[in-house]
């Protein structure tokens, strides 16, 4: 497969299908005895998704101009729209997946995520650092929701609950409401988060002077060198030429 076809396949198939799968599975919940259900993202998840996409652009992990611009054909721009729309839906659903559905725990985790996004925005990480930071964030919230909280609220009890209760010196969660998901939800959530990270890694990244956006945020790049037309070597332009 030639580079142009490979780029077209990635833009038209791989990325949209990855992000749409994340969008589908991000809302998946399964509770014992009630079967499965699919939760649409709450409004706050849309705001967090917007912040995350802004971060991806700022860090050079996503170059929207390589997906949509005036000198691309309508079909090429259409592929770009699918990628960006899929990325937005997937990002919203990833936040939906990581936060408890309701109550005080939802508020606490959401506030934590907003502060973390804000902090990352201020830190101006480059692409590799942002991707590593996202992996840590997703891993941490996954463990918190699907291991720690699921164990604490497990009606059957279990070893993890006993260990956590002992470590917390008998502290109980009192009136904090949380509905623990079935084990299936955790497995699907893990797969979904991993798939999202793969998708984000595959996004067309910003190039400065023909090099990938490593340690070269906007204000450090030489003026006028941020041009996709100067990209050489493996650069993925996304054009069909």
């Amino acid at each position, binding site marked *: 497969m030639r580079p*142009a*076809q490979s780029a077209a*396949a990635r833009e*038209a*198939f791989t990325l949209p299908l990855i992000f749409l799968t994340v969008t*589908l599975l991000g809302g998946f919940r399964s509770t014992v005895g009630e*079967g499965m*259900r699919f939760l649409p993202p709450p409004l706050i998840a849309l705001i967090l998704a917007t912040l995350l996409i802004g971060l991806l652009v700022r860090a050079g992990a996503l170059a929207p101009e390589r997906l949509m611009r005036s000198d691309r054909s309508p079909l090429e721009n259409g592929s770009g729209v699918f990628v960006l729309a899929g990325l937005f839906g997937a990002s919203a659903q990833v936040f939906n997946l990581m936060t408890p559905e309701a109550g005080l725990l939802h508020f606490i985790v959401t506030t934590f995520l907003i502060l973390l996004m804000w902090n990352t925005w201020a830190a101006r990480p480059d692409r590799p650092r942002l991707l590593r930071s996202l992996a840590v964030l997703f891993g941490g919230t996954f463990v918190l929701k699907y291991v720690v909280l699921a164990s604490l609220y497990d009606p059957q009890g279990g070893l993890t609950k006993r260990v956590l209760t002992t470590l917390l010196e008998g502290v109980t969660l009192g009136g904090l409401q949380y509905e623990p998901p079935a084990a299936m939800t955790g497995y699907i959530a893990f797969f979904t988060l991993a798939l999202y990270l793969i998708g984000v890694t595959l996004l067309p990244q910003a190039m400065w002077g023909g090099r990938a956006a490593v340690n070269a945020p906007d204000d450090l790049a030489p003026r006028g060198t941020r041009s996709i037309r100067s990209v050489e070597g493996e650069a993925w332009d996304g054009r069909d030429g």
Partner: protein
Amino acid sequence: MGNARLIRLGGAVTTGLYAAFIVWVYVNQPRTMAQVAGGVASTVGAYRIDQASFAQGISAFRGDRFPEARAAFERADPAEHDPRTQFYIAYSYYRQGFGRVYNDDALFRQGLDVVNRALAVSSSHVVVDDPNLGMHSAAELKAELERGLATELDDLNPLRLLRARK
């Protein structure tokens, strides 16, 4: 050039279909994989119920073995997408819950849920031409179930003891 164009066209069609499927899932909220498969099959007009299980359900229904009838109907229509089967399930709740002195509200409520589902999955009126039934349309059955659940002065009428199960 041409190949890349074809790839993009194929991608747009595939992505569009997949996105439509996702919207369908979030709107219809299937609870089991059977409902997902049945829903997709019925969308393309390929959904068929298991006729053997349906016949078993009808036989049990006519013998007043309602839980057994419902189990057979659920096997026949696992996706809950066949209006006629759903109508019979709702009817089984009605007949089982019917009482001359009082009705079983829990069973009537379940019946109402199922008849609403039958109406929702049907593109036209649900009419079942079965001479053993006192009500032949989902609308009649729904009205009867709602009447049974309502509390009204007529509930105290002693003539209610003489009414017949439909």
